[in-house]
């Protein structure tokens, strides 16, 4: 399946089933579009009619280009057929009931009262609660026991606000560190925080133990303070930005994300991303709000073309800043063309409800954090495991080929079928289609690949920000900093 598009002066052709990306000129762009359905003579005639007055175009040139297209087809770089559907369920079938990642809801309460919170101020439409260490420990034992041969286990401390239960977070990490060697596991911890309770001790511990920290900031002060307020109605921007700066400065190149939410009220969200960058943060993420239709903050159909333009503007501005060495990363534009996910990852779905689950403060299991509070989606608990097998199967069969509407979508090997929670909240069915989200997703992938094309076409012009700084290598699937005094001579990881 091909996807052709023009963006920022580049003519781009994606051969989605091989993963190939081609940057072409306009003549080749048209030839590639005609090639599957037109005989060579027709193509030559059409190209001469359209481009024949150009100095660089003659009949021989066009036939040579057609030959190049044929070569790429023969070498599985163009028009590669989609043969992956039989593999779609194979990975999960092979994995059985293996679980490798838990979102640990250590705190169903929050010290902020954000208007758009999908978790209803951390309560998830239920009671306020903090997870006890006994529950957290059982959850970790449950994870290890169900992780099979998986070595890398992921635990995200989530809420509500997880720092409101900081002692349990630390106890849980310490417990996992005490068992991981004997269990043959490697725990990777992340924490998602609003920043209000960050202090020096939190900074030191997070920078030592958390492979990633996700810091919630919506960008411009007036935008952030409109929704991210405390219970007295006071904005939180002034209180958290200095804490975030201190944490990031001390992080030593380890992963973090400055992560915001945009709503109908700030569809010009690129200004919020640029604000984050201007504050000195370099690893950024910004997400569309999850809100019910009719909510004043919910994104509307009229917003959609605006948002698409904003994503393009963001990509162009990122490149512009990279020219001066002032670049930053944007989560959705991070795409590794050479070392990205294998085809199994690309077609097997996000893993919610199977290899990834959320645990409530009471030890109940849900398919993911966005299903917590939806009682009909409770899968079981950490003492008895998954007991609602039929419900789990709904998620087991979510993959890139589960939805007929995705059959002709060029982006399905980039989204793997999309977010089950988004689908459920938009359509009432985890196998539904959240078309609004799909439209934004496709635009983001187009922009992400355009940036890769720009880098390839002008390797000397752009200086992309590397997670971990200039001396960065890929370690265990993540980019991590290398100390200045480390001998790199035996490693080819640095670009």
């Amino acid at each position, binding site marked *: 399946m091909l996807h052709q598009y023009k963006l920022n002066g580049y003519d781009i052709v994606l051969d989605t089933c091989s993963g190939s990306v081609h940057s072409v000129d306009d003549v080749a762009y048209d030839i590639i579009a005609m090639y599957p359905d037109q005989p060579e003579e027709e193509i030559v005639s059409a190209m001469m009619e359209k481009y024949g007055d150009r100095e660089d175009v003659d009949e021989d040139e066009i036939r040579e280009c057609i030959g190049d297209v044929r070569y790429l087809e023969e070498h*599985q770089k163009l028009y590669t057929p989609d043969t992956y559907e039989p593999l779609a369920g194979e990975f999960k079938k092979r994995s059985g009931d293996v679980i490798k990642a838990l979102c640990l809801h250590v705190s169903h309460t929050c010290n902020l009262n954000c208007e758009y919170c999908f978790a209803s101020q951390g309560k998830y439409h239920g009671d306020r609660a903090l997870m006890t260490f006994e529950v957290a420990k059982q959850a970790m034992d449950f994870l290890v026991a169900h992780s099979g041969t998986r070595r890398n286990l992921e635990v995200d401390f989530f809420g509500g606000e997880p720092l409101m239960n900081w002692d349990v977070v630390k106890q849980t990490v310490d417990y996992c560190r005490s068992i991981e060697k004997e269990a043959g596991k490697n725990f*990777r911890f992340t924490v998602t925080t609003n920043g209000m309770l960050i202090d020096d001790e939190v900074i030191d511990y997070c920078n030592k133990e958390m492979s990633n920290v996700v810091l919630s900031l919506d960008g411009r002060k007036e935008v952030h303070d409109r929704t991210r307020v405390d219970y007295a109605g006071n904005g939180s921007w002034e209180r958290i930005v200095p804490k975030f700066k201190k944490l990031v400065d001390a992080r030593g190149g380890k992963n973090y994300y400055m992560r915001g939410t945009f709503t109908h009220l700030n569809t010009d969200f690129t200004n919020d991303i640029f604000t984050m960058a201007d504050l000195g943060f370099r690893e950024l993420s910004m997400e569309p709000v999850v809100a019910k239709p009719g909510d004043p903050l919910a994104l509307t159909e009229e917003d959609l073309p605006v948002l698409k333009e904003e994503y393009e503007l963001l990509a162009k501005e990122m490149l512009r800043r990279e020219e001066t060495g002032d670049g930053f990363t944007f989560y959705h534009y991070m795409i590794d*063309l050479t070392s990205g996910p*294998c085809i*199994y990852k690309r077609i097997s779905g996000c893993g919610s409800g199977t290899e990834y689950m959320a645990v409530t403060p009471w030890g109940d299991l849900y398919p993911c954090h966005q299903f917590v509070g939806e009682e009909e989606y409770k899968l079981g608990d950490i003492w008895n495991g998954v007991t609602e097998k039929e419900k789990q199967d709904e998620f087991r069969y979510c993959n890139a080929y589960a939805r007929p509407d995705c059959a002709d979508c060029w982006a399905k090997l980039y*989204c793997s079928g999309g977010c089950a929670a988004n689908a459920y909240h938009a359509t009432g069915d985890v196998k539904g289609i959240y078309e609004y989200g799909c439209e934004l997703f496709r635009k983001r992938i187009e922009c992400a690949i355009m940036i*890769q094309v720009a880098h390839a076409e002008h390797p000397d012009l752009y200086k992309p920000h590397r997670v971990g700084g200039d001396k960065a290598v*890929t370690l265990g*699937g993540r980019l991590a900093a290398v100390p200045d005094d480390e001998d790199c001579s035996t490693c080819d990881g640095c670009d």
Partner: protein
Amino acid sequence: MSRINTLETKNLCESAKNGGCGECQTSCQSACKTSCGVANQQCEQK
């Protein structure tokens, strides 16, 4: 190929033969928590 610049990419067809170890990061766990995408994940077998 004067009119076509093919970027270096992972061969997805080849990855069907030896992929699927399951060690890579869970898609949603890392940063966004509100929308799925797998393209920005990295392979652990690099």
